[in-house]
């Protein structure tokens, strides 16, 4: 069986000048980084720009990666700061987690779905739609926790927050997601009747 290099091995190879090793690191993390960027940007073009920017920044600073945390945790912290800078530039209000009034919902149609095609309207589709309606912080915490294979401590490290703050954020985010999902499904049920 062929040995699959670890992230650390790929980083060492990249630092030694092997660009194909870095390309492999990108392939491993691109889906998650792109999804995370989408949670902040709310449209695919901006998300792509943020995600690309993150990987270029990570490459530039690869030498400063100490290996004390997982590569993914380090990468997600770059995604978070890059996305925040991007949002600040775009003047989208994302400061307060509790301020629902500042939330601007922008188009976030999950890829591969046709909204008019009722057959495609699975719970998974509505889940993605509901996540798209969350505040960027909430959506990021939920995504990091469920899909990023990150513990609460690692999420705290990536988002530069206290672990307890992340725990509270996660709890509130799940509550909000549950409410939004129920609202969407109720609305859909009415539409079908």
């Amino acid at each position: 069986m062929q040995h699959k290099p670890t992230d650390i091995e790929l980083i060492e190879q990249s630092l030694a000048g092997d660009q194909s090793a870095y390309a492999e690191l990108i392939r491993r993390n691109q889906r998650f980084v792109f999804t995370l960027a989408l949670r902040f940007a709310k449209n695919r073009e901006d998300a792509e720009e943020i995600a690309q920017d993150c990987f270029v920044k990570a490459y530039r600073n690869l030498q400063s990666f100490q290996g004390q945390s997982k590569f993914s945790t380090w990468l997600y912290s770059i995604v978070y700061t890059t996305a925040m800078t991007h949002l600040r530039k775009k003047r989208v209000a994302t400061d307060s987690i509790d301020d629902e009034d500042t939330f601007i919902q922008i188009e976030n149609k999950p890829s591969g779905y046709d909204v008019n095609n009722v057959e495609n309207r699975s719970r998974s589709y509505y889940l993605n739609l509901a996540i798209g309606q969350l505040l960027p912080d909430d959506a990021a915490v939920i995504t990091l926790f469920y899909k990023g294979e990150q513990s609460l401590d690692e999420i705290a490290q990536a988002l530069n927050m206290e672990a307890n703050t992340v725990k509270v954020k996660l709890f509130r985010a799940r509550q909000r997601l549950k409410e939004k999902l129920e609202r969407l499904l109720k609305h859909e049920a009415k539409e079908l009747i």
Partner: protein
Amino acid sequence: MNSIEEKLWNYIDGTCTPAEHAAIASLIEQDAIYRNKYNELLALNAEFAGMELDEPPMAFTYNVMEQVRAEHALKPLKATIDARIIKGIGAFFILTILALVVYALFSVNWHMGNMEWKMPKLNMPQLSGLLSSGVIKAFLFFDAVLCLYLADHVLRRKKTAKAA
């Protein structure tokens, strides 16, 4: 802890203490409200965990690598060379120039014809005595060792890069 939901989420996430864990487990077993809520949150948890990740465009990796390559191409030559080598070469030249200046100053005949003013007599070491064939041989030997050391350093780096 505040609400039932918060307690149950902590229980599901495994972030509560062993004592809290045992207490909640017993509540789930005995209390129907807790049991129903627990089952509801468990289903929700499974649903959240099943969320799909979005797929970036096909050319995503290629585009990033193009940017990386472009950055490499734009990198000035001085940034690609080891700074220690530059500093070493600089130090060598500075020392050589200083040595030549000092030697020249000591070798100059400061006597100025009929002028009364005379340079104060300084007790300078006789450099001509220092630059004997032995010193020159030692200097060349040091240079050769330095060259071998640098060559070894370069070869080692190449070997490490190849092995990686």
